[in-house]
């Protein structure tokens, strides 16, 4: 049992942690490019989560963004349009996060699921409209990226010149990144001339193909195009992403419950600031690992049983992969990956043992399990095997004090 003074002190720290989470994203000393860079990193991860939600291959959003910018330059788009196209490419699939076609708690017929999936662009546009830092045109490019010149696209069935040029260029970029090789893309675009793409756009594409060889160089995010970003807006974006992930996974408010418990427990254990930051990031992102429809929901298994361990490990690995190369969020990768490890070394994916498991990962795992359990105190039975006994005591103590 932890002394009550420690608990009170712990909760004081919790409050400070919550209020002080602005430091999650480094103070850039007034350098707007630094803040914009962190914001762009978070957007990149959001794009990757969108791709994971609708089953796109990893990295598709980044390649699409680069290809879109490359095409836009050949099409002589205005610089502000190129900037908007980069972010529209990056966020092209965020509408899939929370879309009933891909959501965990929806069981739709194939036909209905297809119809719901048509709303991915418009849902993505709504998400972009709620990110004020994005260039103004981004939302509309996302909204109309799947429209076809002949009016057979979705969601709005716009036709002819009603479709903005940047949206059609993004559709071309989509064809490029989904093709097995550049020649396949060229053939696909030629076949769709006058149908999915306007003849003008087809000519633009052919020109781009000959200029670039059908491959685009990786584009840097146009940081100067992001408006009024700060550590606070980056944190707000992270929270919005986490809320959306929970909605998608059919458990709204889960990360907030887990976060309250995990940070309170971390305070009781006097976890250091660096580990606290990693925990705060991981708690917002761990749900991304189970976002793909193919992934079994964690709610399907008893969180203390070995039965679901492979699925939990798969979720942990997927979530870690989404962020591991990200300069701003990559520090949470190890925590995300290790959250399905067992204290006794029999966990997965790496079989880490005792202190080799990051403290934040142990706290995150115990808080998730506690949140998922019907009879909460049952977590005690996993002390010493699945969880560090000290962590379990802190989680129970923190939960009891909250109650």
């Amino acid at each position, binding site marked *: 049992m932890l002394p009550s003074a420690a608990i009170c002190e712990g909760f004081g720290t919790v409050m400070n942690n919550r209020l002080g989470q602005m430091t999650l994203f480094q103070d850039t000393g007034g350098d707007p490019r630094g803040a914009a860079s962190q914001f762009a990193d978070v957007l990149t991860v959001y794009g990757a989560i969108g791709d994971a939600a609708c089953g796109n291959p990893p990295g598709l959003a980044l390649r699409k963004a680069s290809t879109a910018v490359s095409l836009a330059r050949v099409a002589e788009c205005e610089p502000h349009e190129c900037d908007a196209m980069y972010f529209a490419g990056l966020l092209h699939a965020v509408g899939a996060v929370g879309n009933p076609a891909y959501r965990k708690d929806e069981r739709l017929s194939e036909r209905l699921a297809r119809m719901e999936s048509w709303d991915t662009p418009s849902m993505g546009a709504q998400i972009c409209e709620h990110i004020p830092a994005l260039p103004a045109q981004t939302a509309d490019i996302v909204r109309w990226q799947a429209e076809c010149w002949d*009016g057979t696209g979705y*969601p*709005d*069935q716009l036709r002819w010149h009603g479709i903005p040029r940047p949206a059609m260029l993004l559709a071309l970029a989509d064809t490029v990144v989904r093709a097995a090789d550049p020649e396949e893309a060229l053939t696909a675009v030629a076949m769709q001339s006058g149908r999915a793409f306007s003849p003008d756009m087809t000519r633009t594409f052919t020109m781009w193909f000959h200029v670039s060889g059908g491959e685009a160089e990786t584009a840097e995010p146009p940081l100067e195009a992001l408006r009024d970003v700060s550590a606070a807006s980056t944190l707000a974006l992270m929270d919005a992403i986490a809320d959306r992930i929970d909605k998608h996974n059919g458990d709204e408010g889960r990360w907030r419950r887990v976060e309250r418990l995990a940070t309170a427990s971390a305070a009781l254990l006097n976890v250091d600031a660096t580990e606290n930051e990693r925990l705060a990031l991981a708690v917002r992102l761990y749900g991304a690992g189970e976002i793909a429809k193919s992934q079994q929901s964690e709610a399907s298994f008893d969180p203390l049983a070995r039965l679901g361990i492979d699925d939990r490990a798969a979720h942990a690995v997927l979530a870690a992969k989404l962020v591991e190369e990200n300069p701003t969020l990559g520090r949470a990768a190890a925590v995300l990956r290790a959250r399905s490890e067992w204290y006794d070394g029999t966990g997965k994916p790496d079989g880490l043992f005792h202190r080799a498991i990051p403290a934040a990962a142990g706290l995150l795992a115990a808080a998730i399990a506690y949140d998922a359990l019907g009879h909460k105190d049952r977590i005690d039975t996993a002390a010493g095997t699945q969880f560090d006994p000290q962590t379990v005591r802190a989680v129970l103590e923190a939960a009891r004090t909250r109650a």
Partner: protein
Amino acid sequence: MIELQERTRRISPSRLHEILLRHNCASLVDPFMGLPTHLNYLKRHGIACHGGDLLEWFVRVGEGIVVNDLTILRDSEVAEIVEMLPGRIYSLDMFKAWEGVFFSEEQCVYLGVWHDNVRNLRSDGQTGLAILGLWRAFCYWLQKTQNADDMQDVPPSELAWSYIRQTEQWVIANMRRNTVRQTDVLTTVAAQKADALFLCPPARNSFRSADARIWMWEAWWQGNPYFTIEHAYRDSLFGARAADPPSYARAFASVLEHAEAYPVLVVQTTEQRLGDVESLVRNARRKVEILAPHSYEMYLVATN
């Protein structure tokens, strides 16, 4: 060579849906519906839709994708539309007047065959779907007259087949009664009660410069290549009677007057016409909110 217009009015049904949701509207009347793909979108999202237009083919398409809840075209039925059927007598020269001007001899023959086959369909829903699919094939041909080298040569029946098959995917039920009617604006406005009235009125004298892809398809449906929509609009509220600015404004005001029973009024306009339209709407309603995502896509949302 035929001139295909660059700018068409843009109705974004997803944006319109967001506006309707914000005002808790579950039903909508659109008396200037045009090609009702936007009503199909709203129907798919549970909104009860009622549309009206003067052109018959728009209304027929509405029967296919707005009114129709479950009828689709099976492969065998599509096959009976896109090709000449043995034993049936066709008027193969029905569209000969367009030959060499807009279309090849083969295309004109197919237009005649399709016209007869679609007229012989028994279901309104199927007829609407077929008209929409064939119209897209027709637009493809017109576009190809301008971009012959940029577009693939697709055999007519194959092109028509692919487009008709695509229309099937838009058929959906929303468990509400949806209607379309071929009539003038005031009749549509008076015929239905709904939470919202959506107005996207034609610009003054716009029927004189109507898109060829619209009026020619009405001519196709009527089986008369010399048909003009000026004929259809002659006695309508926004037709010849609204040829000068004051009478156009009077016509607009009379629609707003007849729309008093609708709790929410959504008027779509452009930046160019915003000044005129806004003053008319403000005369009719107390609260007017302007949403302006683009200079050619603006919405005035008016409530009492």
